[in-house]
């Protein structure tokens, strides 16, 4: 299998705090990787670094063999990495359709003159953007289409906002999609449904997925491989069973049993 993302000895520190330390990580094409770890383990920082929002202090990030270090977030997205946010960050006052249309920005190229002269190319591209948007939104069944298209994102329920975030990331046509806690705040039924959709992201759409998630059922059901972070270091990686039975992981989550005093 092709190595899509390869991270070598990545470190970042904020002042004296080492958010990530010498992290090695890789993703192969077509994999679904689950990233777990207790709160403050550095999972979101890890995503921020891949997507270019935080600059690492040391180390290397290779995507399809090319370095991502020093690129702006929009260039990273252009290369083919899209992400969602843990604290849902939609464009709340834009409509659902516009949210998905705007994220195709880096895949389209009509400039102001096309819009002013209403050229054939402009009209075709607008139609294409709209078609793509509806296709992506259709991925979630009827929830985000129909009369909802023209509604602002702010009226959506929490679960649907999360779905729209995923749709927005999908619309950038990425190779690798980073999901930051995709099922947080969903009820068991909704998260089970989303679990199915995450596998579909790979099987039907051909995306490679890296997912931060706290819901172990989701992680178990969908991940090919699980990586556990703690204090900015890789604690364990392997299949879900291997990781979940690893004593270091259990210790990180639950703490060390008290030693009996002699």
């Amino acid at each position, binding site marked *: 299998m092709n190595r899509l993302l390869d991270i070598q000895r990545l470190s970042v520190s904020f002042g004296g705090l080492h958010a990530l330390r010498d992290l090695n990580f890789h993703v192969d094409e077509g994999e679904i990787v689950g990233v777990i770890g207790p709160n403050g383990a550095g999972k979101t920082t890890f995503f921020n670094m891949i997507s270019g929002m935080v600059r690492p202090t040391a180390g290397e990030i290779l995507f399809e063999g090319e370095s991502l270090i020093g690129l702006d977030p929009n260039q990273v997205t252009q290369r083919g990495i899209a992400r969602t946010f843990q604290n849902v*960050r939609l464009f709340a006052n*834009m409509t659902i359709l516009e949210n998905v249309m705007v994220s195709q*920005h*880096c895949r389209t190229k009509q400039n102001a003159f096309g*819009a002013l002269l209403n050229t054939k190319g402009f009209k075709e591209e607008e139609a294409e953007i709209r078609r793509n948007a509806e296709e992506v939104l259709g991925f979630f069944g*009827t929830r985000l289409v*129909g009369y909802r298209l023209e509604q602002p994102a702010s009226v959506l329920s929490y679960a*649907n906002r999360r779905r729209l975030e995923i749709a927005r990331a999908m619309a950038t046509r990425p190779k690798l999609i980073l999901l930051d806690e995709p099922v947080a705040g969903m009820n068991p039924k909704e998260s089970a449904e989303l679990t199915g959709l995450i596998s579909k992201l790979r099987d039907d759409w051909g995306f490679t997925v890296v997912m931060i998630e706290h819901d172990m059922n989701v992680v178990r059901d969908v991940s090919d491989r699980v990586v556990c972070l703690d204090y900015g270091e890789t604690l364990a990686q392997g299949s879900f069973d291997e990781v979940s039975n690893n004593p270091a992981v259990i210790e990180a989550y639950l703490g060390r049993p008290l030693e009996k005093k002699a």
Partner: protein
Amino acid sequence: MTTTAELVTKGAFDLDWRKVARLGGLTALGLVFIALAGMPVGLDSRILIEKYLSLGYVSLLWLSLIMGWLMGKETLLEGMTATRKSSRDAVGGACVGALGGLGLAILGLLINTFDLRDPLVNWSPQTLDILTFGGGVGVVVVWIPICAALGAVGGALHLAPPKVAKATIAAILTVLMTAIFATFIVDVVSPLDFLYSKNRELKLGWALVLAAVAVGFVFSGGGQQLARVKADYHNTTGPAKTRQTAALIVVSAAVLIIIPQVAGKITQELMANIGIFLLLALGLNIVVGMAGILDLGYVAFFAVGGYTTAVLTSPNRGEDWPGWFPTLPWWGALMVTVVVASLVGLFIGAPVIRMRGDYLAIVTLGFGEIIRILFLSDWLNGYFNGAQGITNVPPADFGVFEVKGTDPRSVFYLVLVFAALSIYVSWRLEHSRLGRAWMAVREDESVAEAMGINTVNVKLAAFVVGAILASFSGAIFAAKVGSIFPTSFLILVSIIILVIVIVGGMGSILGVIAGSVVLVGILGGPKQPGLLQEFSQYKLLIYGALLVWMMLQRPEGLVPNVRRTRELHQDEFLQDAWLKGQVDTGEEEPAVEGGEVR
């Protein structure tokens, strides 16, 4: 949607005394402020109704009426109790008015006793004279019953059947408007001057006739018909709507082309000024309203446009320009101006654009001043003549048609062409890939960047488009005025353009048009007189009051942009959506019409 609230009957004197004290105190403070700001004295010479009413007195009368009305106003809440309208409202209004009048009376007595003319210029015998109607000091108490009566009328508006209330307001407004806008009305439709006496004072008889006409209009249901036509237009959709909109645009264009033909110089001048500021406001609307970049130095681009055109067309430009430097006709200069303005936009934009929020506002403020001071400086004196400015800018010559300041009609037509162009540009861009990117940047810049938008380029594009629109305005301004001075580009201009955009409604093209008409047309631009010429001394005071009121009551502007309204009234919006059953509760939904699964 109607609100159903349970009605409770209360006695006439069972008032909310706390509210009475608050509104009464406000009325008193307001009246004393107006009196000490010098409005009654300054505006007394402007007689509205022959022999009976001057604008100076109107400035003291209106407040009690409004406050009396506010006293009886109640916010109806679904399911809560409300007070039944009764004589209580009139009594409340009268109390509020009386308190206001008391304030004026005390002011009169104080003026008579102490001398505070040193800090307060209007602490003067003239003010006292107005307050006592030329009689003795004691007469000043008469303000208590006058204001009380007005307050009672204001309160009683709640009691009267809606039609009567509407008719009263319509009659008062019609008479006042006809009287205040006398010069303008006669200028547009000169045969109407029979309404006025020689000094443009409305004749009492005609004032009564006008009031009767207004009342008749309301009672004949004219207002409802207008409302119905508006609602019809609002509810039409699809191709019919497009047709209606197109028709509306054609009709307004026709009206705009015809008015300057029939109207006099004053109106033409006014329309030309509105147009010049409209062009500026449309440009700033792209920068602030669409892309969310708070640019406080927008006047810089207006200055660059004006100076570039002047330098390229005038024989009186500075002496240091090399001999080969061309003198172009206006339209040739315009093309160069556009290029220069976009370059300046890029130069100023490039360092500024990486900042966000407050920092960006402050830096743009600085650049706005830097540009003006450069034109003023000794260093560039040889090029721009410093404070003397560049004079003798020739009129814009189009062969068949010459645009010059002495012929405001021609200026207006030129402005109209460019305004139409700018409106088209704003409208097309708003619904394009670039427009969507601007919106995303305004909503959340970091996320927009993570979604693949090159925020620096997109924001620079907004800056450059804004700069080009402003340079149009500058070029026309140069040809109109015939000379360009650094003092035409004070920071006040930036502020007024920003106020136009805010008052009109950020991000809304119609709002910006409404804003320019209201602010520049009625109040006047930084140096240009508006319809309310009498108030030009108090222009900034009124701007300030208007802005405060807007921010409190209608932050989305006069003709708001839909999105902006949602942003500012998120709670109400969600509540409405909930009542209409549109909010998504997150439960499994049945398949919705038109939303088939792909």
